[in-house]
């Protein structure tokens, strides 16, 4: 299971779970919440979540402190993450979301760097090979979830550095 997670000092500070009325303080608070959400999801290898799950997760519900971030405030935090490019809603009702501790463009860059470094431009890979192949074991993107991978490759596709194609048993990508 997850290694012991180091909660930031704010997590034990009761007012952290009340959206602050003072604008400057709120900016600091939201910044801290965004960092916390990303670190938490990164450590727990959680790439997607529903809002209902989020409400009850220790992330937003500090049982010991008897404080939980109310759902309207959770929505504010999620919207901040969306604006920063770390979150994408998976449905129109905004009930579940994809959370990416690195933005798709950043993942795309890392993947493309690996491709170039290993001299594999103009090669074709399946999605599986990229995230689970032996060759990528030492890479940060090894084990990346498919939804995030897809968005990373789409970002590269936009830059004309890759093209997503269909292969016999799923999806693949060709790098230029």
């Amino acid at each position, binding site marked *: 299971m997850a290694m012991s997670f180091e909660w930031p*000092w704010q997590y*034990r*500070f*009761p*007012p*952290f*779970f*009340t959206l*602050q*009325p*003072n604008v*400057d*303080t709120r900016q*600091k*608070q939201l910044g801290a919440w965004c960092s916390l959400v990303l670190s938490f999801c990164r450590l727990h290898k959680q790439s997607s979540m529903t809002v209902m799950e989020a409400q009850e997760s220790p992330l937003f519900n500090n049982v010991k402190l*008897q*404080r*939980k971030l109310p759902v309207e405030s959770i929505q504010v935090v999620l919207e901040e993450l969306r604006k920063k490019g770390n979150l994408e809603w998976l449905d129109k009702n905004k009930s579940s979301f994809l959370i990416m501790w690195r933005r798709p463009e950043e993942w795309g860059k890392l993947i493309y760097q690996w491709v170039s470094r290993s001299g594999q431009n103009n090669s074709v890979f399946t999605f599986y090979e990229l995230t689970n192949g032996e060759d990528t074991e030492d890479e940060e993107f090894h084990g990346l979830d498919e939804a995030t991978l897809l968005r990373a490759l789409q970002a590269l596709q936009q830059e004309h550095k890759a093209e997503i194609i269909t292969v016999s048993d799923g999806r693949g990508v060709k790098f230029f």
Partner: protein
Amino acid sequence: MLGMGDFYYKLGVQIIDVCLALKHRNGGLITLEELHQQVLKGRGKFAQDVSQDNLIRAMKKLKALGTGLGNIPVGDTYLIQSVPAELNMDHIVVLQLEEKNGYVIVSDIKASLKWEMEQAQQGLEHLLKEGLAWLDLQAPGEAHYWLPALFTDLYSQEIIAEEAREAVP
């Protein structure tokens, strides 16, 4: 041999460094205890030991140089103010009430200071506005107003290098 002047000069610089690094957390207000702890941490094994009296003297010298670090007596210690927030006597007495629990509620202010509701509210609103206090609406009973500067959990934490880097403009 380093003269006393050098000792206090260097200590003054250290004090300012600590205040700057933690300002984003506590709004520019820090207890003498925490300041002392953080200064000692920053000095390492071979540095001379520093007492709270040393800190107070160093701050007096800084003041003489025109670098104001305000001292607010609370309980049997001090809150050091490193950012020139507008604080009058009203605000200071509210800060002093916070010292016991790290937070204060309107009823306490009315009871201890015999203020009317409006004056109490205004005092607290001002602390919120200056970024010195945070609002807690989930406390049992009334709204609680907490001072990060008095949040004792902070004492045990190192100034994480990353935070310090982020804090300096």
